[in-house]
């Protein structure tokens, strides 16, 4: 696979440097580690920190910003950040009102953030954690806390960032973030694998005519393999899984995110979106807002995910609050 890069070992460093060079007015690098912070923070407010493995751009760095996270702690490509990185970012953000960690639910991220949290407590910084677990294909509904986090990170960070911006306490911001996670459900479909920078082989094998429902963003096994099908049929099968799981009913309001995984085009995403809207309308579900974008990617992986955030009045307030980063606007 051709990839525009230099040495493999410099991929993370050069990605972060490129980001800082582009947006230095609003972001700065945390000394000595792969972390960035948003410059314009309020010392009296709670800080949200996100993070995870690199390679999913614009997540996670691109979700630091106004009304979003205050900082991002980055690991190497598809590997959780180390505790030192998370701790240094925690110390670099405004932390007097406490810090909420929000990240996708993966073993490596949990181990490293938990350790960072212990280290932060030793420095008298209060922390809380909300693990995003929106992927309905990764575990049963009864085991929601075992589910992986995929594009749903966006809605949870959005809600928490807005709650922090509104001046809520650490416990309240945590409650809002946890509620957003409870109300966020996603499912993905993979049609072609991506390649990790510097690696010759693709991240997983998927025959050319095959697709996988529920495929994870690192190639984790999904629900079933199938022959390639039309956009309408894809949307139908994905919505069947999602609506059952999210307990969405006629009269409910929801926000939809169609997230491309890297090489899937906006045209393809829009074609899926027309079917998603048609089906939701037929079921009496009000689409409050729609976002068609590629926020949570896996290099040139082909496919997309559909994320549904079920709204109530409280979540609507925080969803509507202004937010801004170079890659996200509200």
């Amino acid at each position, binding site marked *: 696979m051709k990839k525009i890069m230099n040495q493999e070992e410099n991929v993370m460093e050069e990605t972060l440097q490129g980001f800082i060079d582009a947006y230095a007015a609003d972001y700065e690098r945390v000394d000595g580690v792969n972390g960035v912070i948003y410059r314009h923070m309020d010392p009296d407010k709670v800080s949200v920190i996100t993070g995870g493995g690199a390679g999913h751009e614009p997540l996670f760095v691109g979700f630091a910003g106004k009304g979003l996270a205050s900082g991002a702690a980055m690991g190497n490509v598809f590997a*959780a950040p180390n505790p030192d990185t998370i701790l240094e970012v925690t110390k670099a953000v405004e932390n007097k009102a406490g810090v909420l960690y929000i990240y996708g639910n993966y073993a*490596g991220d949990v*181990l490293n953030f938990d350790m960072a949290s212990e280290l932060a407590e030793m420095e008298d910084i209060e922390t809380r954690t909300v693990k995003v677990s929106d992927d309905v294909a990764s575990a049963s509904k009864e085991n929601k806390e075992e589910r992986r986090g995929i594009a749903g990170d966006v809605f949870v960070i959005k809600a928490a960032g807005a709650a922090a911006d509104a001046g809520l306490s650490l416990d309240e911001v945590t409650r809002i973030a946890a509620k957003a996670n409870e109300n966020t459900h996603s499912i993905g479909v993979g049609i072609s694998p991506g390649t990790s920078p510097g690696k010759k082989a693709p991240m997983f094998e998927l025959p050319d005519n095959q697709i996988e429902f529920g495929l994870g963003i690192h190639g984790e096994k999904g629900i079933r393999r199938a022959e390639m099908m039309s956009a309408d049929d894809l949307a139908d099968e994905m919505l069947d899984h999602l609506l059952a799981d999210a307990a969405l009913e006629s009269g409910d309001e929801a926000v939809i995110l169609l997230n491309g995984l890297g090489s899937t085009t906006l045209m393809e995403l829009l074609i899926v979106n027309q079917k998603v809207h048609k089906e939701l309308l037929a079921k009496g579900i009000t689409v409050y807002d729609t976002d068609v974008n590629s926020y949570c990617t896996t290099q040139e992986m082909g496919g997309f995910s559909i994320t549904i955030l079920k709204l109530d009045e409280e979540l609507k307030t925080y969803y509507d609050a202004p937010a801004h980063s170079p890659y996200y606007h509200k």
Partner: protein
Amino acid sequence: MEKQTMNHLSVDDVKQMLLYVGETITASKDYLGQIDAEIGDGDHGTGMATGAEAFMKKLRESEFETINDVFKTTGMEMMKSMGGASGIIFGTMFSDGVKQLESKSSIDHTGLADIFRGSLDSVKKRGKADVGDKTMIDALDPAVQTLESDASKEWTLTEVLKHAEEAAWNGVEETKQITAKHGRAKTLGERTKGYQDAGATSVWLIFKSMREWVEQHEG
């Protein structure tokens, strides 16, 4: 230097031995990466090499008073540098075994058994995993058990470590029969059968290289 059978390791011996472990891990980067790529994301070799380079640098530039400090420093450097699940798990394997141990400037094979027993208990607790989950514990647990059962024997350090190394390798072989229950490989389920666990392979390499170093430094 002792030219006869080696029964004790001094502070400097432990440091030199762990430096040799680090060099072995670094040299095995591609081997570990290939094993991991079968059922994981192929970054285990790179991650372990990053950790090894970090602890070798720190060990080389530091003076140590106790064996506890050497192990603790090795583990902390891995935790700080590696990231991923393996950073915490392998960092814990080196740093936590000496936590409950009184400060020592020399250890024999009983001391090694004590250290790795502490490591194993901590790794299990932190990783929320046990034998049979297709993780590095499948190699570390049998290695520690042989270290403990050999503690009372009149064996040389080389013999004891050789036995632990074999137990670790048998553990690696057994991971091929297991379906993954932890980490990213978990989601591949049945597809992970037939492949050895990369973390378990690293544990075997660590015991193998400790044995090699001791063997080379015996008479």
